[in-house]
């Protein structure tokens, strides 16, 4: 029977994993991911989750173990964050190239140096090219639901690609909400056990993880690219089918809020979106035609969905909790590229905000809308601006 629990984002992920019944969980702790693996350890201990719980010696080993288990057709889960994500980067590319449908949670956290345990998106965005499907969730309920959806997406025969679910460190991993926990039997019916023809077995032994030559490497990479592109329709189908089964769906790859008649739109990832919605509602009462577009999937990048949702507006401001030093924020690069396929008279600005856990307040978002309006009116504005900067610049 479904029930409600007052739990954190990390605990919601653990509940989702319990419901998905993976065979193998590989765990290595890192702040702010730790609660996920602690809860999973407790679930295995109390018997509510029957899985092999591996205490591995590093994040590299965690993902390496998941790949070994996945090679035998096992369902696998691991979780990491920040420095840990970077430590396992070799395995990220290895897992996607090997087409192992692993699901991994990443608690978004800043990267050293300087050290910071607090959140931004520089860890996962640096790995957009790793071949993983990347999801950014906004609240604890979405975290749980997307764990279940992630296994369905990753293990789909047309996809067979690993999925990374990103939760904003602390803001989402450590805040508590009332979360509906779906019924275990309903989940088992909706998410059947993983079956694949591509696992090792004794009747048809397989050689996996092999080398390729220049004559065929491109074809392997093309197939991988096609699989991630093909995941777009799978993501939409899975979201719709999840909605039918559990009463919640998320709109697929993006979620547009009050964008239909908007002139100005902010684009955000993850937990910042809630604050943006509040500001949009406030500004709407004073006559501003504003909206917010939440990008839920950074890979595959939802080009069509972005164009459909905001291709008609006058100004777009992308909030990036990231900076590609010497250029701009990476979300902006992607949104800008998508919008360039549509009409060309949209003013597009990039605001670098929320690095290393700095709060993105309602006032920050109001300032962003104001600057965007100025840009649309033809006033000189910076294309890439570090907002709320407390040091003087000579720009």
């Amino acid at each position: 029977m479904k029930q409600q629990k007052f739990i954190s984002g990390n605990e919601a992920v653990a509940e989702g994993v319990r419901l998905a019944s993976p065979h193998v969980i590989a765990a290595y702790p890192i702040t702010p991911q730790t609660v996920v693996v602690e809860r999973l350890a407790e679930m295995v201990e109390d018997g509510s989750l029957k899985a092999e719980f591996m205490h591995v010696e590093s994040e590299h080993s965690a993902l390496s173990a998941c790949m070994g288990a996945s090679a035998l057709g096992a369902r696998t889960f691991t979780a990491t964050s920040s420095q840990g994500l970077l430590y396992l980067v070799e395995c990220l590319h290895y897992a996607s190239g090997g087409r192992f449908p692993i699901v991994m949670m990443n608690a978004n956290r800043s990267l050293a140096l300087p050290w910071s345990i607090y959140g931004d998106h520089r860890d996962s965005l640096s790995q957009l090219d790793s071949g993983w499907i990347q999801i950014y969730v906004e609240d604890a309920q979405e975290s749980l639901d997307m764990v279940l959806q992630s296994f369905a997406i990753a293990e789909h025969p047309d996809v067979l690609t690993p999925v990374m679910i990103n939760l904003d460190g602390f803001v989402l991993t450590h805040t508590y909400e009332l979360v509906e926990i779906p019924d275990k039997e309903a989940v088992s019916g909706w998410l059947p056990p993983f079956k694949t023809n591509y696992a090792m077995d004794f009747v048809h032994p397989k050689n996996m993880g092999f080398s390729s030559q220049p004559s065929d490497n491109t074809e392997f990479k093309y197939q991988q690219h096609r699989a991630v592109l093909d995941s777009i329709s799978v993501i939409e189908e899975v979201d719709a089918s999840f909605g039918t089964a559990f009463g919640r769906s998320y709109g697929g790859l993006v979620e547009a809020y009050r964008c239909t008649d908007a002139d100005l739109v902010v684009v955000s990832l993850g937990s910042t979106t809630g604050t943006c919605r509040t500001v949009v509602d406030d500004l709407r009462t004073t006559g501003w035609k504003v909206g917010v577009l939440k990008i839920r999937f950074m890979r595959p990048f939802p080009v069509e969905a972005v164009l459909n949702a905001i291709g008609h507006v006058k100004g777009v401001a992308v909030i990036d909790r990231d900076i590609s030093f010497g250029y701009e924020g990476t979300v902006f690069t992607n949104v800008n590229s998508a919008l360039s396929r549509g009409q060309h008279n949209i003013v597009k600005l990039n605001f670098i905000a929320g690095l290393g856990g700095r709060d993105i307040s309602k006032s920050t978002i109001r300032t962003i809308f104001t600057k965007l309006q100025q840009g649309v009116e033809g006033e000189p504005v910076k294309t890439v601006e570090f907002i709320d900067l407390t040091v003087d610049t000579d720009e």
Partner: protein
Amino acid sequence: MSNSTRITAKNLTDKEFFYGHKACAGCGGSVAVRLALKVLGERTFTVVPAGCMSAVGFIYPQLCFTNNAIISTFPGTASMLSGVAAAARALGLENYHVLGIAGDGGTADIGIQALSGAIDRREKIIYLCYDNEAYMNTGIQKSALTPYGAKTTTTPAGQNVRGTVTQKKNMFEIVAAHGIDYAATASIGYMQDFLDKIQKASTVEGTSYIHVFAPCPTGWGTPIDSAIELGKEVVDSGLWYLAEYENGTFRLNKNPQEFTSVESYLLRQGRFKHLRKEDIDGIVRSRDAKWERMRSQWKTKTEER
């Protein structure tokens, strides 16, 4: 799965599990892999990291393992093996082996963290280190298991430094210090001893580590028919040893009354040709110190099998 009959050259299976690969002529490592798989059989999951055996065996579409096999990342042999073992348990498989095959660099340098973790978890795996004493696949660079004095492409023998200046890392005792269920050293020059140890490992409930000395004619500057002979001579001269660790006890399986000439073993190899008398005397002294310690602290009686 465990065969109670002792496996010898006479009854070793004719089946090949590592076949059609592109290893160099006279490769010692490939002999170790071929024999180990013949002992363990077709129900063996094999994990091989980046290195010689994967480079010569897994070039799509020419894939030469006839059992289930996969290349791991270079540091990830033991962690991927652990994942395979965990999945096999979780999926309820029966009657199988999980074998890792890594070289000296893949074991003693980049892979030692994952190996240590796997032993710590007491994974039911067999980890085979084929030791050809340098990074051969990448072109003969020094590893932690390159012996003192050896010339490699990153430890040139010149006027100022005469090859490798470090000692071979003591992997066997490092592994034993974990309290591993079973560890052994072996050499392809003593084939029956090697077969026995693989067979023994196949019955161990827990982690096994077998460190097999596997000469590399290409990297060592020796004739292509020299690997087996060198694998025997290294043991007879006391520069390598055959031993086991089990239940907290070390045991020397072979305790020569007299050693053969170290100088003769070294100077037949291109990688040691530059050594002077004082270098060789130093190698002999360090050999003698090691044997004195092993003989005084380890059991030396070879049990009948």
